[in-house]
């Protein structure tokens, strides 16, 4: 056996046939608790090499690993094997042997690894986002206060910049942006805010009122005209513009016309009517159709996932029950749903579970795991209850 020509990792991996290499403890062998092994999918490798990966989490949470668009849980998998870790013998490396003998090739073991970390893709944890932003919603009082004190660098409580959110929410940047969008959050003076309901309602009422007042057609609105009108009513441009885009959609790219977005408008008006509690269906429909701008048809379909109906005696009652107020983790979601009702027909249940997206799980799989399904006969609708 001849001695291999080089030492270090390359000496081991490139050991020529009919040669040998000495394996010894490194001159700086120790537990090296600051060195860790992480198993990574080949396709995730570029994320690491181009520095697009961060670890996120609060002091009491298990850290998650985030790329720009996905979130991964980290699990340590121990081994009872002896895993000798051998660095390359690169002279510029910090792991260079301190008394290396140039003539004898040695593969030096720097550390014996006790295991390796593994990644598993998980859904982002966004439930806390609503909680944080609800601490200090943006409302009329603040909007009217034109005294914006830029000198005051001390952070006010309950206010979060993008940087603050990134440090507290276990989600990738893309998932966090999506979460903010789902909450209809708006960035004001560098802080992410949600508008308080009263304020939001006020703006929409003014918007609808102005449409009638100016005899505009609800499906052919001029954005600038509408915003000028709202500003004249005392609303800051950024807020007016934000609300406009929540409740209107572009109809024609060229002519720059917009129209009222039926679903958000109808849902918002329904929420306003039902905010004090349940109501008889007939009463609700009367009030609702009255408030909805002419030209838009009031259909209960748009309220799927926002309200529930129940039969009490001869009457049908309707009340608010929004999927947006439910937890996003499947176990908690189903728990809350079965708290509300012990049995759900599929037609009623579907709008409240269709948004559940867990990597590696289909909706069918989640239903199988968390519910018991019965079907009285082939023609009737399946019924789901708690497991």
């Amino acid at each position, binding site marked *: 056996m001849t001695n291999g020509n080089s030492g270090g990792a390359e000496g081991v991996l490139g050991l020529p046939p009919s040669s*040998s290499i000495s394996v010894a403890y490194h001159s700086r062998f120790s537990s090296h608790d600051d060195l860790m092994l992480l198993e990574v999918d080949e396709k995730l490798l570029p994320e690491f090499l181009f520095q697009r990966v961060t670890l996120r989490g609060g002091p009491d949470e298990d850290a998650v690993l985030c790329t720009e668009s996905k979130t991964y849980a980290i699990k340590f998998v121990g081994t009872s094997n002896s895993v000798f870790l051998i660095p*390359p013998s690169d002279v510029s490396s910090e792991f260079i042997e301190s008394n290396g003998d140039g003539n004898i090739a040695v593969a030096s073991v720097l550390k014996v690894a006790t295991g390796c970390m593994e990644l598993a893709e998980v859904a982002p944890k966004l439930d806390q986002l609503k909680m944080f932003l609800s601490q200090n919603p943006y409302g009329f009082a603040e909007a009217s206060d034109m005294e914006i004190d830029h000198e005051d660098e001390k952070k006010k409580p309950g206010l979060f910049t993008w940087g603050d959110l990134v440090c507290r929410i276990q989600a990738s940047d893309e998932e966090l942006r999506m979460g903010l969008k789902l909450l209809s959050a708006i960035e004001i003076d560098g802080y992410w805010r949600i508008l308080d309901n009263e304020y939001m309602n006020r703006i929409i009422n003014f918007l609808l009122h102005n449409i009638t007042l100016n005899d505009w057609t609800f499906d052919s609105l001029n954005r600038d005209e509408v915003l000028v009108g709202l500003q004249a009513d005392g609303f800051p441009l950024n807020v007016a513009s934000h609300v406009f885009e929540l409740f209107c959609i572009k109809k024609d790219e060229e002519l720059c016309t917009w129209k009222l977005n039926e679903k958000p408008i109808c849902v918002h008006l329904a929420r306003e009517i039902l905010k004090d509690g349940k109501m008889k269906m007939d009463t609700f429909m009367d009030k609702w159709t009255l408030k909805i701008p002419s030209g838009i048809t009031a259909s209960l379909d748009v309220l799927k996932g926002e309200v529930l109906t129940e039969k009490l005696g001869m009457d049908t009652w309707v009340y608010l029950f929004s999927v947006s107020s439910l937890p996003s983790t499947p176990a908690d979601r189903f728990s809350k749903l079965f708290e509300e009702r012990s049995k759900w027909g599929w037609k009623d249940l579907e709008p409240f579970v269709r948004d559940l997206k867990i990597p590696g799980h289909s909706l069918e799989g989640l239903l199988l795991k968390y519910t018991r399904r019965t079907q009285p006969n082939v023609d009737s609708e399946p019924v789901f209850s708690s497991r």
Partner: protein
Amino acid sequence: MQIKVKCSCGEGKCPEWAIVELQGVVQSQPGFENRLQNLQIGTLCRPSSQESYTFTVGYHELVGTKVSLKKPILVLKKIKVPNEEGENLVGVEMNVVGIIRHKILFKTRPRALISRPDPTPTDKGGKTSTSEQG
């Protein structure tokens, strides 16, 4: 809290580390437990052009192969950096210092070699031996 995972390797050229993995535990001669640095463990041989390897530790010989990892393993180092806010607080960063794509894996029970004194003189202290556990 956010910890950045940096890679000082430069574009895609991460130093390649190696793993030699065996079942059981390598023990040092009594008295050497705290002075393992620079101690020889054994000799790794590749007898032929096959990817077959032997690892001789003391009077035990293990037989193994070079295995390509299904998923590469990154070697990460946790480093403390001065916090941007400049106070006494220290921030933490993770740095990718290497990548592992292959290992030499020994899965067999050690075979005791016919005992004879090792002819190669060693001036690096006592030799180590293997013992199998579990």
